């Protein structure tokens, strides 16, 4: 069966510091991968979308970037965090081909920027 991992689970960082969040998927090949941000009490905002290694689509302009160095690894980064980067970051995967587009979410990373 497929599993998705995210780490760290929680993170407190000062403004201006760098960020690296990691997501890995097990039990599937060539998945589509997604990064979402969820502000407190809000919905899910798609940040980045990837269909393969090195293929990243940015959905909204922002202070963050994403990379996919391996098929089942997705990394969210920032060079300098802003207060507005605080939130709950979720990684998700879906089957890469066909019309089966159910997305499955990881446990999330709670980021607080102070």
């Amino acid at each position: 069966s497929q599993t998705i991992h995210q780490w760290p689970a929680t993170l407190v960082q000062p403004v201006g510091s760098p960020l690296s969040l990691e997501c890995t998927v097990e039990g599937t090949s060539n998945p589509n991968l997604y990064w979402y941000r969820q502000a407190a009490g809000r919905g899910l905002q798609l940040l980045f979308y990837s269909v393969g290694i090195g293929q990243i689509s940015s959905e909204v302009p922002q202070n963050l970037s994403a990379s996919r160095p391996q098929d089942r690894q997705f990394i969210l980064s920032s060079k300098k965090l802003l207060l507005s980067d605080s939130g709950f970051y979720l990684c998700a995967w879906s089957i890469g081909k066909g019309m089966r587009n159910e997305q499955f979410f990881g446990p999330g990373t709670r980021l607080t920027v102070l």
Partner: protein
Amino acid sequence: QQQVKQSPQSLIVQKGGISIINCAYENTAFDYFPWYQQFPGKGPALLIAIRPDVSEKKEGRFTISFNKSAKQFSLHIMDSQPGDSATYFCAAPFTGTASKLTFGTGTRLQVTL
């Protein structure tokens, strides 16, 4: 990008009652509409999804009803239980692609004893 309007924002239902959450979408060329359940501090979990070659799908106490002409779909939770207390999100595919989803703003459901 697709917009999905979800209502109500919050809902309080007595144990044993019916919880109803509604969503409306704008346009999509792909018929796939999932619902997610999220508990505090956890990632959303896929609850139930419908591909509207049918107008209704039922899984246990959870039912999705779909009205394609009205571009609306809803989640019904029958015999609501305190353990159903969570935030529920509907979603619809992005216009033009089946691989990305637009989510509603969520409904916080509280089931009281």
